[in-house]
């Protein structure tokens, strides 16, 4: 039998708390290792990147980043010697490998495409999702349950399963390799998630608030804007992050449907070819930059996300 304890019965014992913490730390380390390795690779020189055994300690270099953003060409040593002295640090870095910068690479363009398509589709999915969720939550919609199930069912197989029909359809409609096409595609995939998540959040907001606004002289639309939306902020933020993560990271459709004009970063980064095959530091640098926005928004909204993911116990 245990002696007298000051601990509440609901509180886990210190040992189980410690064990839980240990598990979380181990899990975090395991998932962090690939990320750390990517960031480190981005800061290595090409020889260091493919050194065996792998180098954990090395002299950091920005070569990967320079290679990522530039197109270069190899020149004969005689030509290199005839050049005037380098005008910038990156010129110097490139010349060490007997190359000269011939212009910017396409990375910035691809990155901008990712931003346009990722944020555009997220905005659209969250916008449509909010309106639909509000409707489903508040009004008598004929066949409501069937419709909701139908919306959910669009998520029941991996979207890539319909790749071929979409590929053909997009070709006919002229949507292949366009920003609009990719925005619509990602919106389509995300909107079902958005409707379901947001319906949960809006269901949590008691109807009385809107009704109070209605009797206070506001129209339904005004009540939605001034009373419902501010309270759904948390849910909207959480939903937006989930949508953004999907659209930002999507690889298969991007590879299939885009090649030039609207190509996003994910299909572009792995094909950064350098001297003697893949330019690993440039790939590492590109991946690092690619991860930044998601990390930034997730950290920025982490409080909302936590509350968002654990919704159900939100208020009352």
């Amino acid at each position, binding site marked *: 039998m245990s002696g007298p304890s000051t601990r509440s019965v609901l509180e886990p014992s210190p040992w189980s708390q410690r064990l839980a913490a240990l598990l979380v730390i181990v899990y975090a380390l395991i998932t962090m290792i690939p990320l750390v390795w990517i960031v480190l690779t981005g800061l290595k020189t090409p020889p260091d990147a493919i050194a065996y055994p792998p180098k954990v300690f090395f002299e950091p270099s920005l070569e990967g980043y320079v290679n990522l953003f530039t197109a270069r060409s190899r020149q004969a040593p005689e030509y290199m010697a005839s050049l005037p002295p380098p005008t910038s640090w990156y010129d110097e870095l490139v010349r060490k490998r007997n190359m000269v910068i011939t212009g910017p690479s396409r990375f910035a363009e691809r990155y901008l495409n990712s931003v346009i398509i990722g944020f555009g589709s997220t905005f659209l999915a969250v916008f449509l999702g909010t309106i639909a969720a509000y409707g489903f939550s508040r009004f008598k919609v004929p066949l409501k349950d069937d419709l909701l199930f139908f919306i959910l069912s669009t998520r029941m197989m991996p979207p890539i399963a319909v790749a071929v029909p979409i590929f053909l359809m997009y070709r006919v409609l002229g949507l292949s390799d366009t920003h609009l096409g990719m925005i619509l595609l990602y919106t389509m995939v995300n909107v079902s998630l958005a409707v379901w998540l947001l319906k949960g959040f809006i269901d949590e907001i*008691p109807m*009385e608030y809107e009704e*109070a606004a*209605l009797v*206070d*002289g*506001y129209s339904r639309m005004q009540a939605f804007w001034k*009373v419902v939306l501010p309270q759904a902020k948390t849910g909207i933020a959480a939903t937006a992050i989930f949508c953004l993560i999907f659209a930002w990271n999507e690889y298969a459709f991007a590879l299939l449907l885009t090649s030039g004009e609207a190509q996003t970063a994910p299909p572009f980064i792995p094909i950064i070819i350098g001297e003697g095959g893949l330019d690993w530091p440039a790939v590492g640098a590109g991946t690092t930059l690619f991860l930044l926005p998601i990390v930034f928004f997730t950290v920025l909204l982490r409080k909302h996300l936590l509350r968002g993911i654990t919704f159900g116990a939100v208020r009352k």
Partner: protein
Amino acid sequence: MSEIRLENLHKAFDDFVAVRDANLTIAEGQFFVLLGPSGCGKTTTLRMIAGLEIPTSGRILLAGEDVTNRRAAARDIAFVFQLFALYPHMNVRRNLAFPLISQGVPRAEIRTRVAEVARLLRIEHLLALPVRGLTGGDRQRVALGRAIIRRPKAFLMDEPLGALDAEFRELMCEELRLLHDRVGATTVYVTHDQVEAMAMADVIAVMNQGEVLQAGPPSEVYNRPATLFVADFIGSPAMNLLPAMGPLAPGADHARVSGAEIAIPRLRDGLAHEEAVLGARPEHITLSDNGLLRGHVFGVEYTGVRQIVVVDTPAGRVRVRSPNTVRVSAGETVGLEFSKDALMLFDRRSERALRSEQVQGAGNG
């Protein structure tokens, strides 16, 4: 400030009838209380008046105008919700100002009116605070403030004291009534608490299962309940309801309660079948050796200067309100004497009161 009239108001949710054919007139400036047990349709009635629910049939007139199908925003009625529904993302000041903003009231006037209402409700010190941290009483005041700031045609309040502690409720009860007397607006107040209703109302309407059973001043509803339900629901302890033998002819002045002939006010209505009920408030029965109905004391509940003596009789358990000076002990045999003029007779089958020389056609019977 206006009269509200409900004509044959009916509300069904699919097959379930929440409000059945309600007819009520709420006079201008009246403090009108809708009283009934939980689930009887009070909130639904109130929501129909506010325009938050569309009636299945019937009409709602506000100041003589038919507003049955007018949207809530255009009715100029204020609603105080059961859990107050203060906008959680706004501070107190903005909550109060919100109804004025929709009307396009100029900023300077909003400021003076918010200050005015805050002074009236003594919440000036709360204006800058978020509503999340407020106590129940303060939330209540803010909700009231948000209602009165607009000077609407009528106030609707849905169990506004239900969320408060018992001791605080009494205080707010008084404050509410005072506020009403000061502002003078037509008020429909919903509650399931008969004590609250009796304390505040000009007129009480008692509802059960979607039906308005009786509407009248508290004294009338208390003394002359129109149905068995009202008799049982109002008063604490409730009216004693004892089975009496029918049939009763019009003009009868006695009723037989388990063998005892009890004098009653002369009946106007007759009762063709056997199942009558004699209703007597505990304060209209006295313990007396001459009492015709006899029983033995089951127990005594002390309530200050009065006590409730519980007597088991052949007709059932009877509660008698008597002064503390009368000493009785459990098991003792006592007789019960009834104050004739205060007695009521009911038809057990229709559950309605029979008219007598004391009871005109009470309620809407």
